[in-house]
């Protein structure tokens, strides 16, 4: 038990890199406004 505790305190924490990236379809979710948002800026479909 004593040995386990010692290992836990000396072990260097391993931190994973963070890399987030999502792609969007060509002519997908883009709305393309300037200083204005419409309904949180989501593209709206005619039947949607």
């Amino acid at each position, binding site marked *: 038990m004593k040995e386990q505790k010692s290992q836990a305190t000396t072990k260097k924490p391993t*931190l994973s*890199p*963070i*890399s*987030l*990236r*999502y*792609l*969007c*379809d*060509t*002519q*997908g*979710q*883009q*709305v*393309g*406004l*300037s*200083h*204005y*948002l*419409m*309904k*949180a*800026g*989501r*593209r*709206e*479909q*005619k*039947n949607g």
Partner: protein
Amino acid sequence: MAKGVPVTGAHLALAVNAGAGPHFDVLEVGHPMYVALIEADTAFFSLVPREAVLDYLLGVDLPRSYLNKEAELKKDLDNVRFGLLPLAVYFNPTERCNLNCSYCYLPASQRRSGIDMPAPRLLEALGRLEDFFRSLLPPEVLPQLVFHGSEPLLVREAVFQGIEAFSRSFRFGVQTNATLLDREALQFLVSREVSLGLSLDGAVAEVADRTRRTWGGSGVFPQVVRVLEELGDYPHLNVIVTVTRENLEHLPALVAFLHERGVTNALFNPVRGTQPGGRELMPSAEELAPAFFTALEQAAKLYEKTGRQLVVGNFANLLLALVAPSARRLMCDISPCGGGRTFFAVAASGEVLPCSEFLGFPQFSGGNLFDTPLGEILESPPFRQIKTRRVEDFSPCHRCAVRHFCGAPCPAEVFALTGNLHQPPPYCQFYHLQARYALKIIGEGRLEAFLWKGWQEGLKEVRVL
């Protein structure tokens, strides 16, 4: 293999920052454990443990993994920078305004006694826009048309006729100072689910009225609040806050004020120096950044406490620029900007400009809607100047790690201040600090607290590391 002097570094094809290898900039983001590595040309970032940054840069795993995905990332970024179709119009049905806000980007002479677009001409203009978008967009996509100003409700009858006549052809919005929104007007707009943008700069009259006043100098705070409270949680409501030296310290109070009234979307836009009045109110980056971040944290704190979110749209858009650059919703913070490319502005005279910010610069008109085909206008020399303004082409932006999270906005403002489109933005330091702050938030695992719900819908995740 020929014998000779041994070459250090066995994997030349994977060597970063030389030859055909990827180029990674190291960026301090103010996080205790992470720093950012950024491949700016594809807007790719990775937050890596601070103590291991050299291992990532000099090892083979990061460059190899990155190069495997580089083409896909580049194509995605190129699409949002160069491949999108126009989808929105800012339509100015009058040059006049009943207010004389000190920072307005429209010339005072126009706002005081400018022209209106008569109703028949407005209907004709909307018909021309309808034809243009029909010829361009897939049938299931609705273009967006925002009646903008000056104050569009000064010509309310013409605007409402337009909304009524073209309800199947556009998703409409109205950006207004709210002073002319009586019960009847609200009923008309709300029943048709028209997006409403209200302008408000403070949580109390003493602050809000410093910049937003009538020509006679009276404040309009009570009228705006009356409308805000009437609209309550109308899902198509958006509030635009112009951040100036006059309200910097009061932004957290305004966040709380809007949140309390059920507002879910707001933009906190730093004032632009496009006209002299705005220039005088521009805060420095050192003042702006901490005040803006404090406002963001206030919104996050209220979200955590109440479960109701007030999204600060311009910052949410920057987060999207980092994690899903081609899904961004606003197009100021990218180069080329959206002006003349994903949206354009129509003046009351019918002149078409790349953006409303250019309304005071007639040399940037691409032609008149009533006598020139829109396709021709969008390819005119003034439009091409804006549509080809790229951060790669001028200094110091061309070597900046966050160049595709900033975009060096805004060309109209830069032109007004320097007489040259190819200059860095006046808020350069702020945009840099803002990008660092956004990366820090990602490092803290707090992305969702600042982004719109469902932001990943329809997107495809790419795993690089």
